[in-house]
């Protein structure tokens, strides 16, 4: 079982990470991968993710171990960006490989729900325009994220 957790402050290419990850697990039955990107639209020009190093990385490692064990994974790759990003850039990648599809898909679902609602990241976005609608705005938590999380309890 190989777990890899990465916090990156520069852009990454999902394909360049998932290919080698998959190849490193011969005998797998399935690989599920989710990649989240910065959404454009609504005048969003940039997104900034800040985190708290002392807690973010240990938290991600704990989540990865929990998922690997709960879903009987063969491998788990979890990558998260920090810093300033632009629309279209990947923010997060979770890739899980397992003997059967159910474990791989559920693990990705589980990790994403927990990364969204439980991880130590704070997000603000820069919107175009002048006045109070333009500039940087902190993103508040969404109720959906907590509903999603409750599915696993």
């Amino acid at each position: 079982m190989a777990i890899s957790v990465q916090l990156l402050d520069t852009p990454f290419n999902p394909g360049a990470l998932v290919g080698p990850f998959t190849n490193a697990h011969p005998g797998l039955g399935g690989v599920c991968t989710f990649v989240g990107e910065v959404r454009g639209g609504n005048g969003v020009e940039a997104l900034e993710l800040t985190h708290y190093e002392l807690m973010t990385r240990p938290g991600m490692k704990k989540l990865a171990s929990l998922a690997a064990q709960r879903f009987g994974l063969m491998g788990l790759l979890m990558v998260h960006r920090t810093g300033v990003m632009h629309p279209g850039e990947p923010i997060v990648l979770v890739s899980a490989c397992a003997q059967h599809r159910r474990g791989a898909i559920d693990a990705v679902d589980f990790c994403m729900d927990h990364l969204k609602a439980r991880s130590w990241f704070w997000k603000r976005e820069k919107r175009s325009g002048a006045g109070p609608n333009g500039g940087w705005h902190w993103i508040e938590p969404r109720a959906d994220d907590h509903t999603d999380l409750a599915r696993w309890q």
Partner: protein
Amino acid sequence: MVTLIFLGKLADLAGEDTREVAAPLDWDGLLALCDTPLADEISGERVKIALDGDVLADKTTLAALAGSEVALLPPVSGG
């Protein structure tokens, strides 16, 4: 000294990301160091406090000794 770490929008309110303050530091001492809007925010139930990377179950029990790090954590942003 004790290092205060302001995360997310608390850094905006504090006007800085970190601050070094005199040790030891307890809950009342922390509030006394902050101006009113920041103290109000920190007192709110949605802000958590971590001492050296561990979230306090009850933040009013804060007791930070010299060399420790106190992080002020607003709600995380989600998706």
